[in-house]
């Protein structure tokens, strides 16, 4: 296992932890790209998802658009944007936004429409205004499913930002492509391990946030209601699948 000792030597080398190409800088770049993409995508997907989930209007269009986008190859879209719109940070960011909107949108409207219709009716009957129904009842109750979509989207962005280094931009993916060109395998392996670790850590952080934010009654109910849900072959696998993350 020579390659692994070399890789850990590479990771332990203090010179790889400082300077403009150091691991902290690349990590920060990676997080900045991911954050930027997620902010723009959320600004588009969340309001639209809330609207579709609340009113039920435009669901067919959203499903059709999301369906067409889901088969789109990430790498192809990134390269296409880079070629057509030129170099720089923004073309790949827009390509990534296009890929991130569908899971966020699907997660948001699936969350809202997963809320029991009788709960929503009860809220209206109590005299709540539409916005109160949305933010006071539907969002808190749909949060568990919505978090599934959020986590999927975040993991997808972190994974895809590693590809952006090919264009070439920064981020942790730099180590993979620099290592490939230089035939420096320990560097590639170290970069890959860093990316995998980043994805896992971010997902764990989101899982912790989810535990804090989502009402405990909701997760307890989803466990108790698991049997009933699987009979409909709907809710439980969906929650599992939405949380499935991404490659």
């Amino acid at each position: 296992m020579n390659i692994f000792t070399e890789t850990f030597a590479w990771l332990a080398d203090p010179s790889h932890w400082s300077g403009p190409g150091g691991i902290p800088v690349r990590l920060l770049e990676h997080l900045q790209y991911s954050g930027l993409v997620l902010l723009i995508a959320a600004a588009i997907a969340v309001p639209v998802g809330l609207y579709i989930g609340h009113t039920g209007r435009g669901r067919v269009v959203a499903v059709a658009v999301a369906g067409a986008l889901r088969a789109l190859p990430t790498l192809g879209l990134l390269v296409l944007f880079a070629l057509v719109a030129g170099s720089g940070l923004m073309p790949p960011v827009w390509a990534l936004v296009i890929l991130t909107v569908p899971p966020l949108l699907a997660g948001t409207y699936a969350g809202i429409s997963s809320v029991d219709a009788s709960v929503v009716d009860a809220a209206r009957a109590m005299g709540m205004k539409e916005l109160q129904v949305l933010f006071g009842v539907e969002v808190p109750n749909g949060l568990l499913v919505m978090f599934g979509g959020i986590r999927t989207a975040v993991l997808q962005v972190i994974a895809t930002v590693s590809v952006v280094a090919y264009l070439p931009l920064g981020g942790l993916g730099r180590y993979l492509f620099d290592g490939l060109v230089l035939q420096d395998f320990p560097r590639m392996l170290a970069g890959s391990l860093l990316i995998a670790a980043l994805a896992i850590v971010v997902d764990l952080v989101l899982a912790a946030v989810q535990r804090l934010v989502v009402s405990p009654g909701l997760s307890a109910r989803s466990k108790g209601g698991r049997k009933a849900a699987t009979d409909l072959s709907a809710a439980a696998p969906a929650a599992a699948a939405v949380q499935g993350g991404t490659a």
Partner: protein
Amino acid sequence: MEWFLANSPMVFERAGQHLVLALVPMILGLLISIPLAQFSRRHSALRQLVATVSSLLYTIPSLALFIILPPLLGTRILDPLNVIVALTIYAVALLVRAAMDAFDSVDDDLRQAAVAMGYKPAARFLQIDLPLSLPVMFAGLRVVSVSNISLVSVAALLGVGNLGMLFTDGLQRNFVTEVVVGIIAILLLALVMDALLVILERVLTPWTRAGSIGTGAKAQSGAEFLADAKVHAGAGS
């Protein structure tokens, strides 16, 4: 179009490689997942473990996994085997949970009726559990199909031959047409595979069409958006 006509043998060859790299892991994943799911779903501790490990594996970005695998498998970085193993891991991670849900979706009364009619365990599994779990299983398979076809192209970054080569080559030569042809080819491949899976499901589950009229449109639309959400869970870079 002219470029495509002039280079169509190359594109078809790449599409063939692409299809093999996407399909073999899907079939391997299915063959591994079914026994694994059937075994672990009856033991709650094991079930929890399988669910945790599969979601952890699914978190690892594909590009990173393509590079982590060679030293573990003893392969070279260009070896297509890395891609097949990596995508099989993702397929198992997704399908084992889909398969557990699929087996859960079979009504327990039907199982007991089968036992009462004298079915042996193996026959009951093959003739009752497996066919009745197909609708949920196919939802998982369709996710794997789309996500595999999209993921294979990432392997082109490391030099493994497939349609993704049209992207890397197009970028190097600054040639948009090639990239567009690549995108269309991959979309078509994903679409055709999805259609084939839908047809296969219909052929294998003739009873679902007869029974679904009574349950109404609400349940149907629910299943639709959930399937949609599932696909998004799978479609990564």
